[in-house]
């Protein structure tokens, strides 16, 4: 009899807890799913975010799981297939989820997941050697219009990915043929930079924060950044917009949750990530990694991704990648 009461009490407790989760919830712990191996960009983002959240006391604990495979596709598939048991999981991802869904490398796309927020980002930049005769993007455009083959552009990723799409977008906005870009793909930004300095490439397409570091070393010069306005980290670098080319581009990183996440939990995740920005703990992590705060929560994130998907999709179709 006593046993039965005990069991009843337990069931009651469970019911109360599950009822409680339907109303406002507080996130106590987050399990971060990282679609790549240790030491990569996704890994750093998830672990840095988890570190800031726990140290600031916004959540109690954070756990991490590296699930590589399929260039990130395996983790997406896992989160969708095991949706019910993964309400406590946030997956980190970035611009490639848009590009890879378009190229059908990923069978799913971001609409199959619950969007939490884009948290950080990086603009793209075009870089030339310090002694180059190209003073601004206009010079590069006129050389390109004369002979596209004379402008070799290096980048740290495969053709059809960000580093290739940015110059193609910019040339297109300048009224030139975006398909003629002579793009030299390298498997790392550092190697692309070496190719720029060795004279193999005439310009380099890379991330803004990487370019800031390179410019400080004194060997190269940025001729354009894809931000809407000039960025404090390099106030002397003109945007493409102010040079007369209507192009902006952000390589974002952000978090996704399983497809059937209850809406109150989604709100709670968004809230906790939003609160993170004002903490000194986050500022420390952000500064350490050189990240730019670009916060796109919830529905705003969806609008942003749909817009990015359209721009990139149109361009990739024109370039023949789709």
């Amino acid at each position, binding site marked *: 009899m006593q046993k039965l009461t005990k069991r009843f009490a337990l069931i009651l407790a469970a019911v109360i807890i599950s009822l409680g989760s339907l109303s406002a919830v507080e996130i106590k712990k987050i399990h971060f799913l990282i679609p790549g*191996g*240790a*030491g990569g960009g996704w*890994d750093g983002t998830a*672990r840095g975010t988890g*570190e800031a959240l726990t140290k600031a006391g916004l959540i109690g604990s954070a756990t991490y*799981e*590296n*699930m*590589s*495979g*399929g*260039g990130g*596709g*395996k983790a997406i*598939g896992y989160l969708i297939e095991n949706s019910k048991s993964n309400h406590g999981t946030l997956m980190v991802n970035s611009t490639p989820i848009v590009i890879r869904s378009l*190229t059908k*490398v990923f069978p799913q796309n971001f609409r199959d997941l619950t969007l939490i927020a884009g948290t950080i980002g990086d603009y793209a930049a075009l870089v030339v050697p310090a002694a180059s005769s190209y003073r601004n993007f206009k010079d590069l455009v006129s050389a390109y219009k004369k002979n596209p*083959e004379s402008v*070799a552009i290096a980048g740290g*990723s*495969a*053709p*059809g*990915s960000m580093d290739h799409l940015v110059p193609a977008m910019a040339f297109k906005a300048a009224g030139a043929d975006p398909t003629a870009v*002579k*793009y*030299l*793909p*390298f*498997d*790392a*930004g*550092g*190697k692309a*930079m*070496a*190719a720029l*300095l*060795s*004279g*193999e490439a005439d310009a380099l397409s890379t991330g803004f924060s990487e370019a800031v*570091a*390179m410019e*400080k*070393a*004194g*060997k190269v010069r940025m001729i354009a950044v894809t931000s809407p306005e000039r960025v404090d980290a390099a106030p002397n670098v003109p945007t493409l917009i102010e040079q007369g080319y209507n192009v902006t581009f952000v390589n974002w990183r952000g978090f996704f949750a399983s497809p059937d996440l209850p809406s109150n939990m989604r709100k709670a995740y968004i809230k906790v990530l939003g609160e993170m920005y004002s903490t000194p703990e986050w500022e420390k992590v952000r*500064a*350490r*990694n*050189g990240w730019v705060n670009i916060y796109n929560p919830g529905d705003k994130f969806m609008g942003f991704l749909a817009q990015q998907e359209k721009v990139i999709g149109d361009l990739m179709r024109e370039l023949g*990648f789709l």
Partner: protein
Amino acid sequence: MLDGLLLGLETAFTFQNMFFAALGCFIGTIIGMLPGLGPMSVVAIMIPVSLQIGDPSTTLILLAGVYYGAIFGGSTSSILINAPGEAAVVATSFDGYPMARNGQAGKALTIAAISSFSGGTIGVVLLMFFAPALASFAILFWSAEYFALMLVGLSAISAFAGKGKVLKAIMMTILGLMLATVGESSLFQAPRFTLGIMDLQSGINFVTLAMGLFAVPEAFFLAIDKIRGEKSGSKKSQEINNLRINRKEAKSIAPVIGRQSIQGFLIGVMPGTGATIASFLGYAVERNLASPKERKEFGKGSIKGLSAPETANNAASTGSFVPLLTLGIPGSGTTAVLLGAFIALNLQPGPQLMQDRPEVFWSVILSMYFGNIILLVLNLPLVPYIAKLLTIPRSYLIPFVLFFAMAGAYIGQNNSTELLILIGFGVIAIIFRFADYPLPPLLIGFVLGQMFEDNFGRAMRNANGIQFIWERPMTLILIFSAAIFILVPLIRDWLNIKKK
């Protein structure tokens, strides 16, 4: 420079910095011994911890220690159980493991430690005196030249093309090159040859392949030999703990160490290559320079063949600091991670670092002398104990080898499918061994394959065709020397046969 040096000396040899240099070396060498976690992951893991120290010189001294410590320790599993945990120590297993099989594990570990120490130390000397001057050397090569350099590296396979095995070695190399094309390359975004298996989309994982080809069959043959009742020489096992290198041996590896320190360092300086290429090239070059008698030993337990890659990979990892410190370019994965640490510390690696923060620049370089000595002191006394692992009964050794292989394949990726791939390659490798096909050429082909293809593709794109081969004299010279490397031994052998 002298002022900076003195300032660096003052900074590097404080108690705190010496302690952290030693700590970094210790952590690096211990974790480096485990396959699966290469120097890059170890350094990446250590960065958040090391940033807590606060002092930039100390943080970087610690991280640098972790880096070269990991390279130092990486050779152990290659030599003892034929399980190279990362690409830079594959060449070490070619002769290191046969030596261990012959009962010379202690000697092999000692030679590896001394070669690593010498390569590292000579590398630091070069780094200290020539770093600024070498900045222009780091950006000398275009994709066309890197392509040619890979050809030179591929000539290392001739070491395994012994009697009647030429065709087999070539077939294995081609198979390796083919395996390297699996997954997405940096030239195409589309996945190739993945058979629809998502885990293959990023290509075949190096550690999984190396463990499958080398360690898994090793465990299998250890088991088989026992059933057959073979004893791998009980007399030999007495020699296992013998660390002594006699004068003749010291004399024969001294020139190898001298040459490979410089060659390895220079290859490390170039951003498109690194410790792996340096070790293969070192192996190939030393084999070609060796006398015909010594050449026969390569691949079967040559001390020169062990010393060459071990010297070269350590010298190369020191050399990879040149583009980072003088140009701000990370030439390898590990230095890219280190660049992140510099930025987190508000330091800008590049030409001004030497002027703006001489104490950081020089103390990091100077600490490497101390670190290399620490590594030698740490490793040499451990050699007899580590070597003793091989004297334990096979029934205990086999699960140990398998555990190492599986842990190595799993750790880096955290992906259980890697284990299935590991077993698959293991089974294939066992069949190849029964049919007497040499496996190292497969791995050489695989490691060089992707860089080979990428550089070829880029050079083609840049020149709009194959004329890149003769457009730059430097490319021609390198391709010519690759041809010599491949052809001269063949011609020499052919002439010898004719004479007889």
